[in-house]
């Protein structure tokens, strides 16, 4: 379950250099139940990425209370946050792959951080790469892959440890129609099995095709929830 109550976020301790309040998000309140699906919508600069940064635990809220997967992240210890991050799968717009590691090792990373046995890691990663159509490229380095292939590696890494929450920032931006469709089917399937999913996107066609409640942001405020 995710519950935000009057959450504000500032990157400048709340005050800009000119003295104005520097909140990029303010008074954000919403709840996503376990196993819920939400679109995250809004124009550029509305605060979608900042809200995703809060949800991915990349920053702590400057104001208010934020509970992610049952953990109050404004209060949680560093170690508790680290453990919580292992239950969250994130697909970034810019992929965030480690360029010096092979495709296989990039996808295996969450499992290794979680201390899974190497035998299980090999089986699961090979299976996942086959599913995203990159079985033949598992030894390749990310810089040698196309944008779409890198996106698929990022998706594989995000879902490999069956997270309780998946966050995706424009996940279909670099995929062709068939791959985008396949990804959406994966997200819906994982959601059906109990994973909470939040997808930030600009693609209205996608939102129309897969009807689900949406969080709408404008100028750092939540203007719609449902």
């Amino acid at each position, binding site marked *: 379950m995710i519950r935000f109550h009057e959450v504000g976020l500032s990157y400048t301790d709340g005050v800009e250099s000119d003295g104005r309040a520097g909140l990029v998000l303010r008074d954000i309140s919403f709840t996503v139940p376990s196993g819920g699906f939400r679109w995250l919508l809004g124009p550029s600069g509305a605060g979608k990425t900042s809200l995703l940064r809060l949800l*991915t*635990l*990349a*920053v*702590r809220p400057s104001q208010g209370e934020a509970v992610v997967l049952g953990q109050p992240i404004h209060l949680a210890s*560093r*170690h508790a*946050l*680290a*453990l*919580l*991050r*292992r*239950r969250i799968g*994130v697909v970034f717009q810019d992929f*965030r*792959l*480690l360029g*010096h*590691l*092979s495709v*296989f*090792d990039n996808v*295996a*990373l*969450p499992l*290794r*951080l*979680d201390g899974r046995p*190497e035998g299980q890691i*090999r*089986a699961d*990663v*090979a*299976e*996942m*790469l*086959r*599913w995203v159509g990159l*079985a033949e490229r*598992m*030894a390749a380095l990310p810089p040698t892959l196309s944008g779409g292939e890198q996106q698929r590696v990022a998706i594989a*890494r995000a879902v490999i440890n*069956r997270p*309780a929450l998946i966050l995706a920032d424009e996940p279909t931006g670099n995929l062709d129609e068939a791959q985008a469709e396949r990804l959406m089917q994966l997200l819906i399937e994982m959601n059906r*099995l*109990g*994973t909470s999913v939040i997808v930030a996107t600009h693609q209205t066609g996608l939102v129309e095709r897969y009807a689900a409640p949406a969080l709408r942001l404008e100028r750092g405020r939540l203007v719609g929830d449902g």
Partner: protein
Amino acid sequence: MPRRRFGSNAGGWWAMAKARASRLRPARFDELGLKRAFAQRLLPLLVAAMAFLAALTLAAMLATAGLARHWREGAGASLTIQVPAPEAPAASGGGSRADAALAVLRADRSVLEARRLSGAELDRLLRPWLGAAPETLGLAMPAVITVRRAAGSPGATEEGLRARLAAAAPGVLVEAAGAWLSRLAALARSLEALAALALLIVGGVAALVVAIATRASLAARREALEIIHGLGASDAYIAGRFAGRATWLAAAGGIVGTLAALPVLALLARLAAPVAALTAPAGQGLMTMAGAVMAASVWLASLPLAAAIIGWLTAQITVRRWLHRLP
């Protein structure tokens, strides 16, 4: 969540993929790319220089400590006694003054050995000042008695001995090495303290070098660190990866530096050997040197370990402090 399979199984292809996957993980998985990012040449080189200096300083400290001990236990426990008119009757009336002084000395518990120098030995001692035939000058020569006392004999005992000697042989002169030896001992202690301070400084500089190298590699791998951190790596995990690398590089530098110092120390030991043989008690020169070499070996062997500990600790502290900029 129940474990499930993605898509359909593809038989032979699956087995091939598994076999390929089993070969993919390198023996030493380096997810942070530290093998390239950490200053793998510069850091061991600088730590080697520190270890070299530490080895020389350590050897100097051990040598100074040995000298101080020798002065305390050896020369500090010796006395030289001059008995003027040695053949004159003793105060007690029986025998000569020289014999009476020797009897007093031999009766004292703190005295291990008391020996009157022979005429030939006296001539040899005085030859630089009085020439080859001092007896032709007609000088009244005193008897000279060398005394070796038990180490750590208290000053009160020495005072009592002086009084008994004066009573037995009036005019007797007792020359104790205590006054100048206490100054030498103070000097040796100061040198030891300076060497210890120098060792601390060398250790501090080594820690600084490791900290700078760690910070440089943190900066170089910032993006990878943020990704790993975002995937759920704990501070302990990340700090452990850096500390492991720093430990290995610092230990390698420590071994190289210590090994490089060995020939220099061997040369110094060889130069010091005659002095050690001269200053050690009779017949113990070789033993003293062997003991010093043994002690030095144990301490020198600990230098790479100390370098490794400095590397591990410094990297842990540096990385954990750096990570606090991330939530």
